[in-house]
């Protein structure tokens, strides 16, 4: 991606975010007023602030393009996205979802080894360490600190 394209895109994304924030501030907060300041006031002020910042960034992007005309076409953005971190992120989401439906143990003993396997971990000892820590965390949280981790109904323990 070219740098000026990145700058344009970024300012447009922020502008869009600001507009969405503004719409939410109006639609998701009831209007009521005490001493002239309603619960909407600050969220609206903030969303306007984001819109203003986005517009300034857009102007900056235009100025950059004008100034570096010709050269701007050759300046490339340093931002590169790879698919792999997003795959891992999806597995993190899967970990949370499985935890909801199948409990902490099953989630930790399926998704986490899968993540390690995808990360090309082939030493079985590290899988055993993971198992030990999963059990240890359960014991500390559930038994010692009395913070019950998500479970399914099976014997009430997993």
């Amino acid at each position: 991606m070219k740098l000026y394209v990145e700058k344009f895109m970024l300012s447009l994304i922020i502008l869009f975010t600001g507009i969405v924030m503004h719409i939410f501030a109006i639609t998701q907060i009831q209007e009521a007023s005490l001493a002239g300041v309603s619960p909407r006031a600050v969220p609206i002020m903030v969303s306007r602030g984001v819109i203003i910042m986005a517009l300034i960034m857009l102007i900056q992007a235009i100025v950059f393009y004008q100034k570096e005309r010709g050269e701007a076409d050759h300046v490339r953005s340093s931002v590169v996205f790879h698919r792999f971190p997003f795959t891992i992120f999806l597995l993190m989401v899967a970990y949370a979802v499985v935890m909801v439906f199948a409990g902490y143990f099953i989630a930790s003993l399926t998704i986490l080894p899968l993540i390690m396997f995808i990360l090309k971990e082939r030493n079985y000892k590290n899988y055993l360490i993971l198992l030990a820590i999963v059990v240890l965390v359960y014991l500390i949280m559930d038994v010692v600190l009395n913070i019950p981790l998500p479970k399914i109904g099976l014997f009430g323990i997993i």
Partner: protein
Amino acid sequence: MLTNILSGFIGILSLKVFAMMNLGVLAGLIFGSIPGLTVLMAIVLLLPITFGMDPLAGMILLLGAYCAGNYAGSITAILINTPGTPAAAATLIEGYPLTKKGKAVKALNMALIASVIAGLISTVVLLFVAPIIATFAVKFGPAEFFALAIFGLSIIISVSSKNLLKGLVSGLIGIYISMIGIDPIMGTARLSFGSYNMMSGINLVPALVGVFSISELMNICEDFWKKWKNHEDDSFEISNAIEGEKLTRGELLDCMKTIIKSSFIGTFIGAVPGTGAILSSFASYNEAKRSSKHPEEFGHGALEGVAATEAGNNGITGATLIPMMTLGIPGDVVTAVMMGALIMHGLPVGPALFSDHAPLTYAIIIGLFFVNIIMFLQAKVYIKLFVKIRNINKKLFVALLLIFCAVGAFAVNSSMFDVFAMLVFGIVGYFFLKFDFPLVPMVLALVLGPLAETSFRQALIISRGSLMIFIQKPISLVFLLISAISLVISVIQARKLQNR
């Protein structure tokens, strides 16, 4: 007073008190250093144990956990970019880059020494000038709190020196997210989309863990991908300086001025009820950066930054006890629980504590001195063990960090909503990092946004809508002026740095 101090000193000279001190410090170190486990949790869990003890041993146990817990948040912040406590979020700005440079031991030792010095200074203030500070602290009303919050938010400019606009956007988004939940004045739901989970607002711990740790996990995975692509060895590179470089006397002396200054900032802010360690650590960081001879090093691993944040953070430990012990007003939730412990032991809080139970009160304060010393000794050993974290297999580390992040976020409210919130913050944090948006302004705004908004609206209700209230109140005016000056200086400094 001298007699009371001496009797207090004699009072703590017991094996039981020292045992409790050690136990409290150990509990604080463990709870503070694990993200999701809070100092408050440690205090609440230790509270029932204190019932069977004499008040002094019980209070020392709780104070040990409080002081050590406040410090220990910095350990994981420095080593794995995950703040153990919300206040340690300021420490990771400089601490984690130092670890990346292989100077983890240096950063950890600096954090420890700064925390101990700040704790001792705070205790001296508690011992000698508590009543004077307490009278000043209770003068804080909504207008003053608003000005203080604005002062805190002005730090956003300072931490966004690389790109002011991006810093401001990050801060504004943080404020907006902090508005989610029940409106503190009118009691109506805001931005909750009808979800009960959203009505209780976004908790700070999942937000912090997501923004810093999940995004870091994604970065680590990206590094793996790059290494595989380039056919490089993907095994973990043990940082050679982790075991090597130690903090030198010269480095410590260079930072001493910052440590002392930050300790006093922490003590002052901590004495004001309802402010807390996050504000003091960020304010100290801002001041350290402003007055530093090398401001360009900040953000890239400046030891001075670690010293400032940790001194600011632990400077509050004695100070939060000032309004509690002298006036019966707890400075934060943790001191409220400690106040409960005092009451359960049949002790009065407020001025009567000093007049009717002077030997015990002074023994508790003297005990706080020793707590800091014990903390120093225990943490030295603890750090050595903790540093080994960086040496474990990096692929296993990813899985383990994910467990701790998820369990830590879950533990706050025993709610899976917080785990999902953490993941959302994680992906936002990852995009922010990719596009060079600073994360700290968002975190700072998440913390200070509610304080600023609530006190702003409360002040306007008091003044019937007149903004003059912020200028008419002297303390508020002073803070607003300091904020304005700090803003101008930060902008000039940022310009200078950009030009360089």
